[in-house]
C-alpha cells in the first residue's frame, strides 16, 4: 500500500511538473528572475558573478569565452534546453556536482516553469 501511494505521488508529481512546464508564464518568470539577477545578466557579453544568460537556450554549457567556468560545468556536456534547465535549476549540485553556482535550487516546479518560459522568451 505504502509503495503504491508513493508511486502514485511520484506519477502525480511528474505529471504536474510537466503540466506546469507546459504552462510556464513568462511574465511571472520575469519576476522570479529577480532571484537570479544579482549574478546573471540577460545582456550579451555582460558577465557578473555568473555568466550572461543572453541566448542561453540552445547553448552548450560553459562555452562563453569570457567567463571562467567551473571544471565540473565544463565537463558536463549539457546543452541548455527547457528540460536540462529544469533539472539543473531544481537542484544544481545534484545535477552537476561541484559546479560553482552558489544557489541551493528552486524547489517549486511551477516557479521553475515560469522562469524557463521567461528564459525561452528572452533567448528568442
Amino acid at each position, binding site marked *: 500500500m505504502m509503495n503504491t501511494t508513493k508511486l502514485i505521488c511520484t506519477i502525480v508529481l511528474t505529471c504536474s511538473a510537466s503540466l506546469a512546464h507546459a504552462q510556464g508564464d513568462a511574465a511571472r518568470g520575469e519576476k522570479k528572475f*529577480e532571484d537570479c*539577477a*544579482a549574478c546573471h545578466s540577460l545582456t550579451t557579453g555582460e*558577465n557578473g*558573478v*555568473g555568466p550572461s544568460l543572453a541566448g542561453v537556450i540552445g547553448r552548450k554549457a560553459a562555452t562563453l569565452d569570457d567567463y571562467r567556468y567551473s571544471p565540473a560545468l565544463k565537463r558536463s556536456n549539457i546543452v541548455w534546453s527547457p528540460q536540462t534547465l529544469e533539472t539543473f535549476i531544481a537542484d544544481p549540485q545534484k545535477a552537476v556536482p561541484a559546479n*560553482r553556482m*552558489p*544557489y541551493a535550487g528552486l524547489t517549486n516546479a511551477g516557479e521553475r516553469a515560469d522562469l524557463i518560459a521567461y528564459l525561452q522568451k528572452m533567448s528568442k
Partner: protein
Amino acid sequence: MATKLNDVDVVIVGLGWTGGILAKELAEAGLKVVALERGDMRTTDKDYAVPSIRDELRYVIRHDLMQNTARDTLTVRNNPSQEALPMRRLGSFLPGEVVGGSGVHWSGHTWRWTDMEFKVRSMYEERYGKSFIPADMTIQDWGITYDELEPYYDKFEHTAAISGKAGNLKGQIQAGGNPFEAPRAREYPLPPLTPILCSEMFDKAARDLGYHPFPRPTSNASRAYTNPDGSKFGACQYCGHCQRFGCEANAKGSAHITVIPIAMRNPNFTLRTNSWVTKVLKDSDGKKVTGVTYTNILTGEEFEQPAGMVLLCAYAINNVHLMLLSGVGEAYDPATQKGVIGKNYCYQTGVNARLFFEDKYFHPFMGAGGSNVTIDDFNINWGFDRGPHGFVGAYNVGSGFNTALPIGYRPVPAGTPQWGKAWKAATAKWYQKAMNINASGSVMANRNNYYDLDPTYRNAFGQPLMRMTFDYKENEHKLGRHSADLVNAIARSMNAASVIPASARVEPWTVVPYQSTHNTGGTIMGTNPRNSALNKYLQSWDCHNLFVVGANVFPHNSSYNPTGPVGALAYWTADAIKRYVKNPGPMVQA
C-alpha cells in the same frame, strides 16, 4: 619629493561603507571626488566566488582581507604606567583593507542605537543622580538625537538589504519584533532569515522566562532584493562562511556591490587603490585642510592630492591615527584631561555559555552571519533598573551560529583533554550537538582608555605607530557579572546534558584572541570643541573643510554592533556636506 596632482573638490581616505556612501552621494551632487584606498580592488566574481572563497587558512588564519601588520599596526597596553608593545599579528579586532573595507567581511548585524546612547549622561544623571556616574567615566551626550537620525537609519537599512522584523512602527508595538526598539517609520526591507534550531530553542527558553526574543536584524538578504539605488542582491544561501569572508551570492550588504560600483560609473569619481595616505595637510593658519599626501604602496611613489575638502573614511582606528599624525586638533592627555584627539577609546565586552545536548543536531555549518535570536530586556530597555546593580550601560543576549568554521569550530564539554584520542572522539561527538548563548556588553568611556602616538615604534613609512591604552573597569565587571548570571539562568532552564557556564571577565583585556572589530571613539562628536573633536555633522571643530566618519566618532560604545549608526551617520553627513558646499564654514558655532 611628492608629485603634486590636480586639485579636486573632495578627497576621501578609505573606500568602505562610509567612503562608498559619501563617494556616491557627493559625485551625484556634482562634486569631483577622488577616493584613496590602501587595499586592492576585489570583486565578487573574481575574488569571492566558490570554491576559492571557502579557504579558512587564507581568510581566517592569514587574514587575506585585513590590514597587513607588517606595514602598520598598533602598540597596546592596559594602562598608562605600562610600556606598550606592538601587535605583530592581528588578534582582538580585524580592520579590513580592500575596496569595500570591513563591510566585505562583516556578518551584517545592523542595529539602531537609541537616545539611551545619544543622551547617555543626561538620562543617567536625571534618573540616578550625578554621583551614579564614576568620576573617571568620561561619558557625554553625543549632540544628536534618534529622531534626527531615524530617516538615515532607514536609508542605510534599505541600501544594505536588512532582513528583520519591526518591533515598533511609529509607536505601535509589533508582534514578533523587538518591543524595546525606538519607533521606526516603516518595516525592514526584507523579512527575517529562516530561523535555525538553536535560536528557536533560545527563543522558547527566553519567552518562558518572560523575556522578549526577536530575530536579529541583519544585512543578509533573506530573499533576492533590488535596493532603491538599483543594486541587486541574491538570496542568502546559509553557507556558514560569513564573518571574515566575502559573500559569493551577493547576499551580504557591502559597499563593493552597492554604493561603490554606482560611484565608479559616475565620471565625477576616481578611485586610486594601493594608495596609503600618510598625512592630512593644513593651510598656514591651520584653519582649513588643503589635501593629503599619499604613497603608492606598489611603486613607492609619493603624491600630494590637493582638495577643497578632506573626508576621513578609513577604519575607525586609522582615522584617529591620521588625525594624530597630521596634528589636527589637540592630542588628548589623560593626566590633565586636556585635548580631544584620541579621547574616549571604547571597546566591547561579553560572556558566553556553551550548551551540549545528547539528542540535538544543530547543523552549525548551515547559517547566515545574522542567524540569531536576541533579547534586549537588559539592553535598550530603560525599564530595566540599573540602580541596584550599580552599572552604566547594557547588554544584549542572543543565540545563533555565525561562521562555525569547519576546522576552527571544535566545541567539547568541560574536562575534555585538549589533544589526542579522547579529544578527537569528543569533537566528533559534540560538533553537531553544541550551541552557545552569548551576551554582548557595552563599554563606557574612561579617562584612562585612549589613543596617542607611540614614542618608540614606527610603521613602514617611518611614522609613529598608534598606541592603544585600554582595560575594562569596575563598571564593565559589574555589567559582566549581571550578564553572566542571566545567561546562566537561561542556559539552566534548557535542560542540556552539560553546560560550560558563562563567567564575567575580570582579568585584564588582552589583544591576543579575536574578540570583536567594534573599536569606537578617538575623534568623538559632541556639543562643543572643549569636549569633542567633531560637531554633530562630523565636521572638525578645528578645520571646517575636514569631516571624519566612522565609529571613531562615537563618544562611547554600546552593546550593539556599530554599523547601523556608522551607515546612518555617513548618509547624515553626506546631506550636511551638500548644504556645506553652498555655504562653507563651521556648521555649528563653537
